[in-house]
């Protein structure tokens, strides 16, 4: 079985700061990490490879420095890493990104055998769109299984796969057929620690670097800014509310006095809320 996992190197968004004057992202000192959602996809791929046999190829699109990310994923046990890097990919929106990745997956298939499963995380923490996975599926004409909480069964022989998919208000149990694209839900498995063996292997392993031509992209007009139907017109820092919180001042005293002051302040500010509370509390 051949499994491709798409991962992305992202800035650790918890540590991002915006320059107060220029409203630009201050990237200096912000560490890059593997998009946390992608780790669940990677782990799931490694598990099924270990169980059913085969290889795991990881694929990313990004600047040359994304090689660090790839090496980390190799340490965790992936067999092969492809870094798609070319200036023509810069500024890609989700449509252009899914074009580049799907084309590269096609090339990966020609080179190392057609993939049976492509995994992605459910979304990234920087873009948060969850659009690239479905985009890749549509372009490759793979069956699309998003927000997968669990793979119940997978049989490479009969090509049958059964998954539990997070839907609105419940889980859908879906049966489909390989090849599939799966976007993996978070919290669905626990990431392994890399073994010493795979760490040593990763240190020696070569990260395959492909430019647009090597990846099989014939029309670079479909890539990067040129290939992106969406255009960012303005970037701005969110406006804070003009007025700050009214601070409830209480004398140092029993905490119950503070609590009563808080409740009084809530009801003073929003008189209707007490009847709402009575109604809700009665239902609970």
């Amino acid at each position, binding site marked *: 079985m051949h499994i491709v996992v798409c991962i992305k190197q992202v800035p650790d968004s918890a540590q991002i700061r915006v320059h107060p004057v220029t409203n630009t992202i201050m990237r200096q000192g912000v560490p890059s990490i593997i998009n946390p959602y992608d780790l669940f996809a990677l782990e799931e791929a490694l598990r099924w490879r270990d169980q059913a046999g085969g290889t795991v190829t990881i694929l990313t699109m990004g600047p040359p420095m994304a090689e660090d990310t790839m090496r980390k994923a190799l340490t965790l046990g992936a067999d092969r890493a492809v870094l798609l890097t070319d200036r023509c990919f810069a*500024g890609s929106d*989700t449509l252009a990104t899914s074009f580049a990745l799907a084309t590269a997956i096609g090339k990966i298939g020609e080179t190392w055998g057609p993939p049976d499963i492509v995994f992605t995380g459910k979304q990234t923490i920087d873009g948060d769109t969850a659009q690239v*996975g479905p985009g890749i599926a549509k372009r490759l004409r793979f069956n699309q299984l998003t927000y997968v909480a669990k793979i119940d069964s997978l049989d490479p022989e009969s090509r049958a796969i059964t998954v539990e998919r997070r839907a609105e208000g419940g889980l859908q149990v879906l049966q489909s057929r390989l090849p599939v694209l799966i976007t993996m839900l978070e919290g669905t498995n626990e990431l392994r620690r890399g073994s010493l063996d795979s760490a040593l292997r990763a240190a020696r392993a070569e990260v395959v670097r492909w430019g647009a031509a090597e990846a099989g992209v014939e029309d670079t007009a479909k890539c990067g800014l040129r290939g992106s139907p*969406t*255009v960012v017109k303005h970037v701005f820092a969110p406006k804070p509310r003009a007025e700050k919180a009214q*601070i409830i001042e209480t004398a140092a005293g029993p905490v119950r006095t503070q*609590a009563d002051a808080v409740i009084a302040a*809530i009801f003073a500010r929003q008189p209707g809320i007490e009847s*709402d509370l009575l109604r809700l509390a009665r239902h609970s």
Partner: protein
Amino acid sequence: MSDAAKPSPPAAAAGRSSMKKELPEHFKAYRHVWVFIEYERGNIHPVSLELLGEGRKLADKLDVELAGVVIGAEAEALHEAALSCFEYGADLVYRVADPILAHYRNEPFTKAMTDLVNTYKPEVLLLGATTLGRDLAGSVATTLLTGLTADCTALAIDDERSLAATRPTFGGSLMCTIHTLNFRPQMATVRPRVMPMPERQAGRIGRIADHSLSMAEEDIVTKVLRFVPDRDSDKAQLAYADIVVAGGLGLRTPENLRLVKELAEVLGGDYGGSRPLVQKGWIEADRQIGQTGKTIRPKLYIAAGISGAVQHRVGVEGADLILAINTDANAPIFDFAHLGIVADAVSLLPALTEAFRQRLSINRAAS
């Protein structure tokens, strides 16, 4: 993985905005605003009605019609859904009824949606950013090769009749306004609760246009074996709760989350947590409140020990009243809360729970 951090270089982005070209001739016929109506198991997802409210404003600005798209198995049930759409602002409903469409599946829904778009040519198409809406939107946009902007927090029409879709990026640190200049339809998704629920106009009516699905069950690979409803049915209700209490790192230990739950219970509300609590594994991911979790619009939101990072603010600023409890008087949460108290949430929460319990039981007895 997801999009390639499109708004990362603001300088380059600003340069790009001058690249506006004339809309290609074949797209000029695209007219009207559409909302995909998420209809499952006899219910319209509230986000679809919220989008009808927003779509109405866009349609009025463009001076075009607002249409809902309802897709499902039974024409009769979809007729009921259509009547609701009219009452929430739609002039017209496109109905695709076919037994194949009994449960949501990507292939037939994408087919139904793209066929409708190619036939009736809308200029704007809005979908809820639910698991269903996001699954469908990405496929439809890729099939149509048009632009799609996810998780918008504001939608507007600019002077050139173009949809200006504003969304947070980099976890809410920055906002960006995105246009789909030379392609149609202009697609956007919006998360539940981001837009207010419009007033229902009882008796308001409209037209229904039927369209058939040109697909047979044999064409569809993926089958739905069964649907397992969530036992913990409050999971999906956090976004729609009237009262929400949430905790942050100021709770200090995972055990203290109990204090948040107890207050929420006394108030008849629901509870959640900030992103760090999810990352630490103190609380389930679907209880995360903020840009990357749930957006809430309760009547009362109590944030206990939450510092108030931008990404959190984005998810809660629709609340009618925000009360912040934090030991740090300089915490950013006090910049957007309405009421604040500089106090330790761990000691104040139980007192607040008790005080509310007494107050509510007295008044209940009196009423």
